[in-house]
């Protein structure tokens, strides 16, 4: 059985490679040698003259992305060359209400995949990364939104009441100790992924932490490694390892129950599951689910209010979570 799982993981990872070039962001895109330049050379005869500065890049799906400017100097991007001619023709015709709709609709499709080009001089910020404007691809958005709504209800109708009740009964120090215990069991995952990322000092820290917390911390219930020895937990997982190896997140997936993830991070979770001690201690899947359930309730009891705050702050919580997740993971891979 294990061999089949490993085989599936490698197959998915291999497929992910196809997403690497695309998801790696603007830095990876290179212009083709026969593009239209601003001095007017043509690649194809059917591109109208009213388009200024058309740039053609290839995406790794075998298609092309066309960047062009309209009369006002606004920059747009699209996969569909035909739509450019249509748009410019419409703009030339004087832009009635109907045309605006067509333009807006096309813009929505174009924007959802590609980064926003901000031409304003005021925005030039030398300290900002080039990939700061990268957005994650989300073709499964309708499905993801359904799962997001499901998770939202699951939290308010089930998880929050249970965790609040549990939190009212069990004092906080005890719950923190339980959390420490489970975190300590995550040692193999963090240790192996540190090694895979060649972060040897971090791997050493993790090893010391495990020894100190298990022995002095009485089986991991306490965390003297952080408080007394100043050794911080090195949060590494297989998803980050794949990111360090060059895999982009590829697509956003919002799993029901599990929450926000991506193709890469889901492969990461599957890979990490082999290093989870609970998988070996627990003989049946009911046992595994029960333990995971308890761990979730315990962790949630310590964090009630966080999700509500996020919903309060956002106009569109789904997008807020998606973007925060993507930025957070990108930052962790970089570190």
């Amino acid at each position, binding site marked *: 059985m294990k061999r089949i799982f490993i085989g599936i993981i490698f197959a998915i990872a291999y497929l992910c490679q196809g997403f690497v070039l695309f998801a790696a962001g603007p830095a990876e895109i290179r212009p083709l040698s026969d593009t239209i330049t601003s001095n007017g050379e043509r690649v194809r005869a059917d591109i109208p003259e009213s388009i200024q500065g058309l740039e053609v890049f290839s995406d790794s799906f075998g298609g092309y992305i066309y960047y062009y400017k309209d009369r006002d100097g*606004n920059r747009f991007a699209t996969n569909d060359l035909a739509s450019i001619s249509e748009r410019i023709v419409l703009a030339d015709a004087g832009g009635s209400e109907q045309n605006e709709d067509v333009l*807006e609709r096309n*813009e*929505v499709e174009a*924007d959802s995949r590609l980064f*926003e080009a*901000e*031409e*304003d*001089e*005021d*925005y*030039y*910020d*030398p*300290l*900002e990364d080039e990939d*700061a404007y990268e*957005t994650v691809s989300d073709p499964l958005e309708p499905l993801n939104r359904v799962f997001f709504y499901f998770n939202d209800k699951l939290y308010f109708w089930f998880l929050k009441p249970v965790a609040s009740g549990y939190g009212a009964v069990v004092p906080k120090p005890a719950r*923190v100790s339980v959390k420490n215990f489970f975190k300590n069991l995550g040692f193999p995952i963090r240790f192996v992924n540190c090694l895979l990322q060649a972060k040897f000092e971090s791997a050493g820290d993790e090893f010391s932490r495990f020894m100190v917390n298990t022995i002095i911390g009485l089986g991991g219930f306490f965390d003297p490694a*952080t*408080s007394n020895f100043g050794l*911080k937990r090195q949060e590494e997982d297989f998803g980050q390892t794949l990111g360090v190896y060059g895999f982009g997140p590829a697509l956003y997936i919002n799993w029901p129950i599990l929450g926000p993830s991506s193709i890469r991070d889901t492969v990461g979770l599957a890979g990490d599951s082999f290093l989870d001690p609970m998988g070996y201690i627990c003989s049946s899947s009911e046992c595994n689910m029960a333990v995971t359930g308890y761990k979730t309730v315990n962790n949630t009891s310590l964090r009630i209010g966080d999700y509500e*705050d996020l919903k*309060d*702050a*956002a*106009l*569109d919580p789904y*997008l*807020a979570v*998606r*973007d*925060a997740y993507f*930025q*957070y993971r*990108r*930052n*962790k891979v*970089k570190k």
Partner: protein
Amino acid sequence: MKFSNSIYPEPLNLIGGHMRLKYTGIFIASVVLVLLTVFHAAAGEPTDRIRKTTDKLIEIVTNAEFAEPEKKKERDKAVRAAVDEIFDWEAFSQRALGRHWKKLEADDKIEFIKIFGELLEHTYMDKTSQYSGEKIEYLEEEIDGKYGVVKAMVITKDKKEVAVDYRIQNKSGEWFVYDLNVEGVSLVKNYRIQFNSIIMKSSFDELKKRLYAKVEENQKE
């Protein structure tokens, strides 16, 4: 950005011949001097400004006088006044709208800054009552011309460390914060994605309506 054909910076183009050499020398010397100050990454003026404001905020929040519920309005006003000193609401709103900002009329812009500010006020500043002894450690400061970043670490009571970066911009001599990066998640970008989606699917007026509705909903709680 302007790209000049000459290898000399703009002003020196106007000077001819041997004078250019002399002024180049002075220019290089002054550049070196500026670089020396810039690379001095320890606490500089921006860090001090931010530190003063956060200290002031902590003082307001922990002040026993303001603790009573009747005094909440005064405390909120004091908090807002302190934040106004260091936070550039206009730059934040401008970046949150991205390329849609240019298309707005002046009164639309003012209205947007106001309502967006109220949303942020409620969701972040009203939560000051939840302050429980967090400490802020200022790590380093990087400046490149008009822009910079002050890297800090918030240490909670449970010894948890959260990395917070303040992105700063120099406007007429004073440094202002225009973005916050919490563990790599930029506040401006998070809002920009949401606003862009709403504006693209409907319109700016719809965004304004939703902002007003959200602020009203929050105030009811």
